[in-house]
C-alpha cells in the first residue's frame, strides 16, 4: 500500500436513520475512515437528508440517538457534507431544519465554518462524477 495515495472518498447517505441501522453504521465508517487522511466527502440525498434533521429525540423508541456524532465530524477533519437541495425540498425541509455543523479552519485563524453545503442535484451529479471511491450502505 502506497501511503502517499490520496483518493477522493464519497460516502453516499440515502437512507433515513433509526428504521434501519445503515445510517449509524455508515457514520461509524466515516469516523474510522477519518484516520486515513483521504479526501473525504459525504453526500446526503433522498431520505439521507433526514439524518441531519435537528431535534432528534429517541428516548421513546429505546434506540441510541447518534445524531450528536455528526457534530464531531469537524474535529475529524470531515468538513464536506453535501446536502442536496431538491431532496430537502421534496421532503418539505429547508436548510434551517438541519443541525448546525461546523469545522474550525486552521488556515483562517480557526474560524468556524459550516460543514453543510447545500448543493443542487446538478452540482451533486458532477461532484459524484469526480470521486475515486464511492461507499454505499
Amino acid at each position, binding site marked *: *500500500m502506497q501511503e502517499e*495515495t490520496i*483518493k477522493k*472518498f464519497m460516502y453516499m447517505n440515502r437512507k433515513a436513520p433509526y428504521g434501519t*441501522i*445503515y445510517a449509524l*453504521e455508515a457514520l*461509524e*465508517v466515516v469516523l*474510522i*475512515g477519518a*484516520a*486515513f487522511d*483521504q479526501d473525504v466527502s459525504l453526500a446526503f440525498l433522498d431520505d439521507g437528508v433526514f439524518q441531519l434533521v435537528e431535534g432528534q429525540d429517541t428516548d421513546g423508541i429505546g434506540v441510541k440517538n447518534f445524531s450528536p456524532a455528526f457534530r464531531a465530524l469537524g474535529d475529524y477533519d470531515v468538513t464536506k457534507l453535501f446536502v442536496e437541495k431538491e431532496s430537502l425540498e421534496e421532503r418539505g425541509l429547508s436548510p434551517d431544519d438541519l443541525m448546525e455543523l461546523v469545522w474550525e479552519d486552521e488556515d483562517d485563524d480557526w474560524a468556524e465554518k459550516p460543514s453543510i453545503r447545500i448543493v443542487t442535484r446538478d452540482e451533486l451529479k458532477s461532484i459524484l462524477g469526480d470521486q475515486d*471511491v*464511492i*461507499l*454505499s*450502505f
Partner: protein
Amino acid sequence: MKFGVVVNEGPYTHQASDSAYQFTKAALAKGHEITRVFFYHDGVNNGTRLTVPPQDDRNIQKNWTELGKEHDLDLVVCIAAAQRRGILDENEAKRQGKDADNIAEGFRISGLGQLIEAGIMSDRLVTFGD
C-alpha cells in the same frame, strides 16, 4: 485490475451475497485480483459456520470459504458489526467472556479500517447490499 468487494447483507434473505460471489468469481476468471471481500452490516452473518441450509440449496458460507481457499482471498468480517450480531472468533469469544465462537474457516474478524484500506488498495470497490 484490483477489485475490493463489499457485502452489506446476510445470506439467504437478500441476494447481495450471492451477487457478490458471482461477481467475485467472474472477476477472478478474467484474471483480476480481489484485494479483499469485506462483510459489513448484516453481511457479517455470511461468516458463521453454524448455518445449515437445506441440502438442495447452495451453502453461501461454504461457497465463500471454498472460493477463498482456491484464490487465497482475504475475507474480512467487520468487528463492530460482528459484535452486535454475535459473530465471534476464538479470541473475541474469550475477550468478551462468551462460551462459544462461530467464525467460519477462511474468514477473519478485523476493524472497519480494513474497508477504507480496501478502498485505497483497490482500483475499484464494488458494494452489494439492500
